[in-house]
């Protein structure tokens, strides 16, 4: 795909045109992507979460392309951050799934003397298939989500604000810096633990129940300014998310407790855990799926228009020459990408061992369809709230494939990795395309670099996970419980695999949740099913913080007007997001250094 880049065009740009797809932007994006991928694979194994990296890449791009080279442009920096975050996000899909395979192998060997027979090659093939399919999926949905539905993608707005900072006037730059400082100081205070009061303020959450409000009403607020800022950027459109949380925790939860649907003797935090883990979270996953599918049905005429527009672009491009004539990658390339992705998917499944041709073909078909649904869900959820339900989608992927592959964990994991990489790519690319829209970038150039570079992240992340695992005593056990890299996400996935093996899947919740999601998705309110499903899937502390942000936006819009929100609130909220993201990166780096030095 790299051959699509026309050296003549690049040369013309370098010679003084408007710099967009340049060698400098691509090289910087590649280098940053590799570094961020390695750093965040390590951080995810240690902390259990990863960071998109777009903000870091955009700031570095601004400093190097504009500050150092003195020639950089906004759209060139956008290409840099698109590549960097694409390579980095491919690693996230790997690190949330693959470590579970190593850990399960070791566990089963210890327990029964027989481990899992698996090779890394099928995983790599599956990962590359996921990287291609995630990109392919998102191209036709760009018009639907960004141009028609107008999803906010708060992180995309924050990255735009960074790229434009310094160009958008001193007032906006000051507001961005103010938000950054406030958020950074607040995050540092929370991380330091200086504000902690046992039972009231712990782990960055404020318990406002004071012993008077029962735990099953979840009287907790997540004190993340980034979360609240995402709500501030969304406004009224995010209110159904708050509504979903209120329905789950202030209606359903007390009904369940009052009607005696919870086990006797379970109280306090354990009761909260039961309601969340056994009732609301699985129901939320079902609702997310039903809501997303119904959303496709309801918006079908608009989606068809978007596809026609792509087909039209293909015809126009045949008549005109040059990359500038095309706005969007053509339908022909999308179909070719789908075919290549599905072929790799099939090969990866077949090569994983114990899977026949028919099973591999069925797995490819089901996996591709599921990947499309999961990608849609994650992209919509990220677009509306900035929160990605990736772990829930990984759960369903592995469950689905273990059933299809008759309990073959290694083969199911190939699909699990592919789906996680794909949905991560989809959400990341949609954020990047939102940034591109706001900067006036050409979508086709972002799509080309996404195709050309992101698969690299799969190899880097798999290599990093392998090296870290074999760095343990006796060439294994380099991460997992009891090590400095506990890999919490992989531990959770192991638990799911154990549950599937023992036939303990809450299918009733998924089915009934799916029906509820469909009913919500059919309402004349954009994204209602996905938002309510996500609110049930997440702890209420997050939903409440986000909802407060939405209410702040609405109040400011009513009292100060739209212009105030666009020119004052947006840069300030973007600063809050960037401040917390970068402080999180800094803290993760610090924690890793401390651990490494401690081990040394």
């Amino acid at each position, binding site marked *: 795909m790299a051959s699509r880049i026309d050296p003549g065009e690049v040369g013309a740009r370098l010679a003084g*045109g*408007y710099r967009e797809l340049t060698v400098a932007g691509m090289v910087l994006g590649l280098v940053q992507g590799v570094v961020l991928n390695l750093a965040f694979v390590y951080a995810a194994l240690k902390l259990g979460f990863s960071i998109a990296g777009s903000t870091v890449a955009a700031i570095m791009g601004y400093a190097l392309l504009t500050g150092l080279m003195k020639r950089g*442009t*906004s*759209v060139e920096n956008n290409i840099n951050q698109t590549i960097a975050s694409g390579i980095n996000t491919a690693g996230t899909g790997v690190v949330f799934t693959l470590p579970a395979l190593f850990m399960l192998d070791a566990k089963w060997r210890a327990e029964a003397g027989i481990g899992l027979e698996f090779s890394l090659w099928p995983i790599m093939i599956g990962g590359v298939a996921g990287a291609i399919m995630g990109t392919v999926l998102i191209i036709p949905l760009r*018009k639907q989500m*960004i*141009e*028609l539905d*107008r999803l906010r993608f708060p992180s995309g707005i924050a990255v735009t604000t960074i790229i*434009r900072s310094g*160009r*958008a006037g001193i007032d906006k730059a000051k507001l961005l810096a103010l938000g950054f400082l406030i958020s950074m100081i607040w995050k540092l205070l929370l991380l330091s633990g200086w504000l902690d009061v046992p039972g009231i303020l712990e782990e960055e959450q404020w318990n406002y129940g004071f012993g008077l409000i029962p735990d099953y009403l979840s009287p907790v607020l997540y004190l993340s300014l980034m979360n609240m800022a995402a709500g501030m950027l969304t406004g009224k459109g995010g209110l159904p998310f708050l509504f979903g949380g209120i*329905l*789950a925790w202030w*209606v*359903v939860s007390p*009904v*369940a407790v009052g*009607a005696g*649907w919870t086990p006797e003797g379970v109280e306090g935090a354990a009761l909260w855990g039961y309601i969340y883990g*056994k*009732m*609301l979270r699985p*129901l939320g996953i079902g609702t997310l799926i039903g809501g997303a599918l119904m959303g496709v049905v309801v*918006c079908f*005429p*608009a989606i*068809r*228009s*978007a596809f026609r*527009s792509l087909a039209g672009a293909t015809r126009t491009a045949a008549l005109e020459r040059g990359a500038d004539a095309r*706005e969007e990658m053509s339908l022909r390339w999308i179909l070719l990408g789908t075919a290549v992705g599905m072929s790799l998917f099939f090969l990866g499944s077949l090569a994983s061992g114990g899977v026949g041709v028919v099973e591999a073909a069925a797995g490819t078909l089901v996996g591709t369809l599921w990947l499309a649904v999961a990608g849609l869900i994650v992209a919509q959820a990220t677009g509306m709230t900035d929160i990605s339900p990736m772990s829930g989608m990984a759960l369903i992927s592995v469950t689905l494939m273990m059933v299809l592959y008759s309990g073959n964990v290694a083969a199911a994991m190939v699909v699990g990795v592919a789906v996680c990489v794909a949905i991560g790519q989809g959400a990341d690319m949609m954020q990047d395309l939102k940034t591109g*829209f*706001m*900067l*006036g*970038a050409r979508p086709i150039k972002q799509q080309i670099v996404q195709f050309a570079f992101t698969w690299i992240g799969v190899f880097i992340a798999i290599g990093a996970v392998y090296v870290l695992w074999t760095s343990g005593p006796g060439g294994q056990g380099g991460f997992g419980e009891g090590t400095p890299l506990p890999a919490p996400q992989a531990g959770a996935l192991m638990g799911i695999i154990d549950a599937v093996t023992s036939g303990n899947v*809450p*299918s*009733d*919740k998924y089915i*009934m*949740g799916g*029906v*509820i999601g469909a*009913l*919500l998705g*059919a*309402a*004349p309110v954009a994204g209602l099913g996905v938002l*309510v499903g996500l609110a*049930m899937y997440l702890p209420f502390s997050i939903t409440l913080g986000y909802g407060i942000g939405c209410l702040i936006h609405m109040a400011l819009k009513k009292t100060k007007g*739209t*212009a105030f929100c*666009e020119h004052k609130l947006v840069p300030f909220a973007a600063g809050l997001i960037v401040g917390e993201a970068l402080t999180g990166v800094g803290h993760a780096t610090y924690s890793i250094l401390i651990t490494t030095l401690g081990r040394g």
Partner: protein
Amino acid sequence: MQAAKIAFLVYILGIGLAVSGAAKVPQAGQAWPDTVPIFVAGTLLGCLGLLWWRAGLITGATDPAKSDQDLADMLRHVRDCRDRAGNIRQELTTLDGDALRQKIDNLLLDHIEPVVENRFALVRHYGMKDGAEIMLKLSLAERNLNRVWSAAADSCLPEAHASFGRALDALEQLQAEMESGNRGR
């Protein structure tokens, strides 16, 4: 209006009942909880409320006075935007980057943003298919205006001017589509 509110409440009540009925964990050895009837009742109630709610919206959308007013407002924004963009083109070569960005900011905030905010009325009036086509045209104009802003900020005025031409073309097509779609009704 009162009926629409009642329909919405029926829908919400149905959803609440359905979620509550679905929440209970099945007894050991059972695949489904014994609260499935509550779930089914809630789902049916929700369906009823949804149909009622949607029917009310259709009635509202076919209210000629309201629909005409919505469309007139949006058409006015598109015409004004195109007229102002036409005036900017006349003086394009005399504007520096800062002045051009200020004018683009004003166009986006004064005319594009109100149409985007009212996009559901656009879809209700033209239907999903034609409404989507119009929104895609509007988005093309908006993205090119954003490019003008970026290029002007990056001191690349030739690119800003070229993008401005593309934005103006898209605005003209948008206006033509909205007017012809309106005449067809």
